[in-house]
């Protein structure tokens, strides 16, 4: 297990290093100098030069890359070109909306998908299975941001149970914060729940045909007991991978859903930063998203190997 962990850790480091080089240099080739953009077309050359020096833009690209990475390692993401506040501060404020939203949606998706997938697998080929699978087929086809608009129309505008947008803020109490993230989380979760339910169903069906399931029945366990004790545990392996993948889809999806609900999350930050050519903010947010995806997949790989010893030997 240690050897496997170290190997995966090395590959994690390489991925992060390559990703950071890619992000930095891809954004650095962008036309347009942030200093001249901020000062407008009538700025004096020496003013632009002074601002470039102040923003740290007057050294070579490699030096800036090294400074950027060194800063990130100690939690310093630089200073926003437009707001002149530390990027780390801006990002962490927004993260308190985007991350809870993502996790909320992930929990909802799992909570819906597990029973739905188990039910469909247990009723294979019967009306219940066909209904659940039909619903998932539809769930996969619905764009989550459109679904979000429909939720707003029904539950915020017509029924007035929720506010149509905005975020109450965590200082108003946990309940108010969670409440204002509920519609966005449902909108994000449903399409992913549809995918997860399908995976859950097919993983369970694969497992149900295994010999050890028959053995378990033969030794006197009921059908429900065999599914619960032996089936579910083995079916969880593919399901775990999908949950890991879904984290990245949900995190990216939250960027879009934030637009529907006017939530002050990472999505709004990054779109504002793009239009203001605040490249350091774009770089940092993108790096953070990629970091989250790589680390979660690393954690899933480890969890996977912990659950199934066969995988450790294979790689």
């Amino acid at each position, binding site marked *: 297990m240690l050897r496997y962990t170290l190997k995966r850790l090395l590959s994690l480091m390489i991925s992060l290093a390559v990703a950071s080089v890619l992000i930095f240099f891809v954004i650095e080739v962008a036309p347009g100098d942030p200093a001249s953009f901020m000062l407008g077309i009538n700025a004096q050359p020496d003013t632009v030069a002074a601002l470039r020096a102040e923003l740290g833009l007057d050294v070579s690209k490699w030096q800036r890359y090294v400074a950027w990475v060194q800063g990130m390692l100690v939690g310093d993401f630089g200073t926003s070109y437009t707001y002149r506040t530390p990027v780390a501060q801006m990002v962490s404020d927004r993260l308190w909306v985007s991350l809870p939203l993502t996790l909320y949606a992930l929990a909802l998706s799992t909570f819906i998908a597990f029973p739905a997938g188990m039910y469909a697998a247990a009723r294979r080929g019967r009306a219940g299975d066909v209904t659940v699978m039909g619903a998932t087929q539809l769930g996969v086809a*619905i764009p989550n*941001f459109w679904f979000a608009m429909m939720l707003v129309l029904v539950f915020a505008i017509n029924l007035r149970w929720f506010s149509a947008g905005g975020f109450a803020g965590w200082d108003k109490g946990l309940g108010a914060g969670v409440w204002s993230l509920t519609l966005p989380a449902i909108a994000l979760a449903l399409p992913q729940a549809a995918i997860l339910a399908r995976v859950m169903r097919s993983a369970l069906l694969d497992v149900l045909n295994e010999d050890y399931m028959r053995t378990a029945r033969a030794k006197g366990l009921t059908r429900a007991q065999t599914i619960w004790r032996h089936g579910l545990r083995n079916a969880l392996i593919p399901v775990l991978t999908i949950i890991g993948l879904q984290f990245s889809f949900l995190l990216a999806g939250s960027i879009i859903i934030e637009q529907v609900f006017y939530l002050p999350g990472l999505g709004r930050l990054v779109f504002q930063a793009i239009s203001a050519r605040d490249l350091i903010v774009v770089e940092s947010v993108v790096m953070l998203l*990629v970091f989250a995806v790589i680390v979660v997949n690393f954690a899933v790989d480890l969890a996977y190997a912990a659950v199934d010893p066969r995988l450790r030997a294979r790689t």
Partner: protein
Amino acid sequence: MNRNLIIGGTLSLIAVMAALVSFVWTPFDHASMNIPEKLQTPNLVNWFGTDHFGRDMFSMIMVGARTSIAVAFVAVGIGMGLGIPLGLWAAARKGAWIDELIMRANDLIFAFPSLVIAILITAIFGAGAVNAIIAIGIFNIPVFARVVRGAAMPLWEREFILAARVAGKNAARISVEHILPNVMNLLIVQATIQFSLGILAEAALSYVGLGAQPPTPSWGRMLADAQTLVSIAPHMALIPGFAIIITVLGLNLMGDGLRDHLNPRLRVART
């Protein structure tokens, strides 16, 4: 022919026909504004109603189908064009450094969800349909590379490949002449799935303003326009939404149907 294939094929055909017919005929000019007739609900003249500028929504949906289909089609083309050769190459050199390199590069691309790639590209080149195509297309490359590699690797152990090697064919020729035809079914099914994901991704990118720019109509942008008006003109949000759902549902059903039709034993991972 199975039921999924017929229903899915019909729904997909409706979307394709709408796009094709829009080149020669639409009920109205999709771009012409008619303010006195704005926000009409669906009626006999404007079958899908009108938007906040009085533009005919039926015509906009037809022309919007072009954008969605074109973006998704080219993005799948990019994914297949680069992903298939890479996957074949990796499978032919299984375990060698090139296989390792291709697969690790794929993992890396997977860490950038297509939306994040789109954000990066837009930050550099600005928003537009072409950049949306590139963003979705880049994300498709590892998908096809993985599917091809996974399907091709067991084939390399088979006798007919050994026979081809004995006949003196090199790895590249074997890949093209023997491996590729044997993974084609799988690729067709995966292409259908990626096509439907491409339609969804294009809609999402256009919705947040990173995709097709005005005056090009696109279903995602129509939804963005509808957002502030959803309480007074729900049809503006409902109709483009249904257009997306019908197209994506059609493609997905067609993918399932094709999978069963081409090879009942085949199972494609859909994530």
